């Protein structure tokens, strides 16, 4: 949600670069920063060495208690046979790696995993490309038009996911959907009673449209906020050198906005990979489970079927998968941290 720009221009003069750094949660205060040392340490009462730890204490405590503990419990449960009966009677039945072997040995699980990865990639690429374009467009529009478009984007962003999903199911309804009605009016008559949820690809089309629709505003606003911090002189210099729009984009905007791209992509990968409501509510993973993704799988097997052990095993596997996908980013972060 880091939409911020004006502050930099009005309050921290001479640091156009710092503005972008505010969006770059990952790369944070990257290269070219002031030297690390040579600052008098904090208050006199607490030894300076302890200060950072004291500051982190509440966050660490909260994380250990509220995230670490449930996570540990999830891992423990994933080695148990925990169904209705065990839950109701407070029984603990260990069953070793059974939940894992069941999942890892099932062709469905691997199909779902592969599908989830492709699904994430498609969505994130679309979101980043289109979001960037919308951000560029915002930058180019006149004041009134920009405000108008911003309002639409804000409304789309603020709409509760459950409500948005409900509306989309209905826009694409076979009998009463506006989309089919509209396509028919456009002259595409075979679409009049088209059943969007009848095939894998058409269902995914609706889901992806919904996710992209809801995700573009975040990217576009951030992109736009970042763009406003790029000094005009940079564009002009590039144009003077004879660069066209595309060159300006690749040689001026991209380098400055790189931290933004990295940070936003990171977040979007996580958010899309974990997207549950949209995928589940559109068609419950159907037809024939062909749009089931990992979070939906974990929910249906764990919560829906009340086999909590199996569900927890899928959850743990989901974390492992996501961490693998994210390894690249983690490496970047570690590198950046070294430079700080």
């Amino acid at each position, binding site marked *: 949600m880091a939409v911020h720009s004006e502050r930099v221009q009005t309050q921290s003069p001479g640091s156009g670069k710092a503005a972008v750094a505010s969006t770059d949660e990952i790369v944070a205060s990257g290269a070219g920063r002031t030297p690390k040392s040579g600052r008098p340490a904090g208050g006199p009462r607490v030894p300076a060495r302890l200060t950072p730890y004291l500051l982190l204490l509440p966050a660490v405590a909260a994380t250990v208690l509220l995230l670490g503990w449930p996570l540990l419990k999830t891992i423990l449960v994933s080695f148990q046979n925990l169904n209705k009966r065990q839950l109701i009677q407070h029984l603990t039945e260990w069953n070793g790696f059974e939940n894992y072997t069941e999942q890892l040995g099932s062709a469905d699980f691997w199909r779902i995993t592969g599908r989830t990865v492709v699904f994430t990639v498609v969505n994130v690429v679309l979101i980043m490309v289109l979001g960037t374009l919308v951000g560029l467009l915002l930058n180019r529009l006149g004041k009134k038009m920009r405000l108008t478009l911003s309002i639409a984007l804000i*409304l789309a962003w603020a709409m509760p996911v459950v409500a948005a999903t409900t509306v989309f199911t209905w826009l694409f309804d076979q009998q009463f959907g506006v989309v089919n009605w509209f396509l028919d009016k456009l002259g595409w008559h075979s679409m009049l009673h088209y059943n969007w949820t009848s095939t894998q690809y058409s269902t995914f089309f609706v889901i992806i449209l919904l996710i992209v629709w809801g995700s573009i505003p975040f990217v576009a606003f951030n992109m736009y*906020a970042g763009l406003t911090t790029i000094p005009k002189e940079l564009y002009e210099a590039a144009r003077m050198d004879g660069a066209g729009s595309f060159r300006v984009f690749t040689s001026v905007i991209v380098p400055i906005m790189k931290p933004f791209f990295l940070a936003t992509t990171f977040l979007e990968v*996580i958010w899309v990979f*974990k997207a549950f409501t949209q995928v589940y509510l559109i068609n419950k993973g159907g037809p024939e489970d062909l749009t089931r993704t990992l979070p939906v799988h974990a929910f249906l097997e764990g919560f829906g079927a009340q086999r909590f052990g199996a569900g927890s095993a899928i959850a743990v596997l989901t974390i492992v998968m996501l961490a693998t996908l994210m390894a690249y980013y983690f490496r970047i972060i570690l590198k950046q941290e070294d430079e700080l």
Partner: protein
Amino acid sequence: MRRSLIGRTWPNAIAVVLFVFFIFPVYWMIATAFKQDSDVISRTPVFLPLNATLEHFDKAVHAENFWTYVSNSLIVTVGAVLGSLVIATLAAFAIARMRFRGRKGFVLVVMAAQMAPWEVMIIAAYLIVRDNDMLNSLVPLTAFYLMMVLPFTIWTLRGFIAAVPKELEESAMVDGCTRTQAFLKVIFPLLAPGLMSTSLFGFITAWNEFPLVNILNKKPDVQTLPLWLSSFQTNFGTDWGATMAASTLFAVPILILFVFLQRKAVGGLTDGAVKG
């Protein structure tokens, strides 16, 4: 450098198309909320609810315990957001401005914590709360919501703090401020947009949460609005009109917050570029 007429027109044309694309689902939600039942499901779409009705809103607002849900939702959401802001600001300052052993590890944890699959960790969270006799209370709920938004908040605020030039802080300290004073007087005011935008994220997350509250709090007096929102779905189908009216009302606080924050946090949207 004057652009040609076409060059000036196409962005506007695209903007109009995008405007319709983004606003239509929102419009459809609101319009449906006002429609008569017979217009809600209609073979020819009714685009303008000319014979509007308030009956769906009436039904939504007069659902049992509605105001209890509203106040619980506000308590839980505001509590989680404020709590995470305080905790996150402290932590973000440490990792953005200080060097110490374990810092890298903490940053990694913050990153990784954003991947937590809460949807499926809920049963574990439930078991913990149940076994500690804390069911039917707003406290664990608020705490878990706080945790759901904490990593993102730390991460984002850290970026904001890092963006404040160190020179500002240092000059304040040269002027005799302690580090705490320097933080409060120099950095904190500059953090306003960051605090606003992260609180918006936190608000939306906590405000929407359903599965956890559904099993932790079974007594109506400690339940929240998402349960109300889903109450217009039954085994025999969804009451569209009421669901849309409820969704509209449900989105109102977020919209208000957005409009309010728009000035502070999203201020650049309307005039930022022009000034540049």
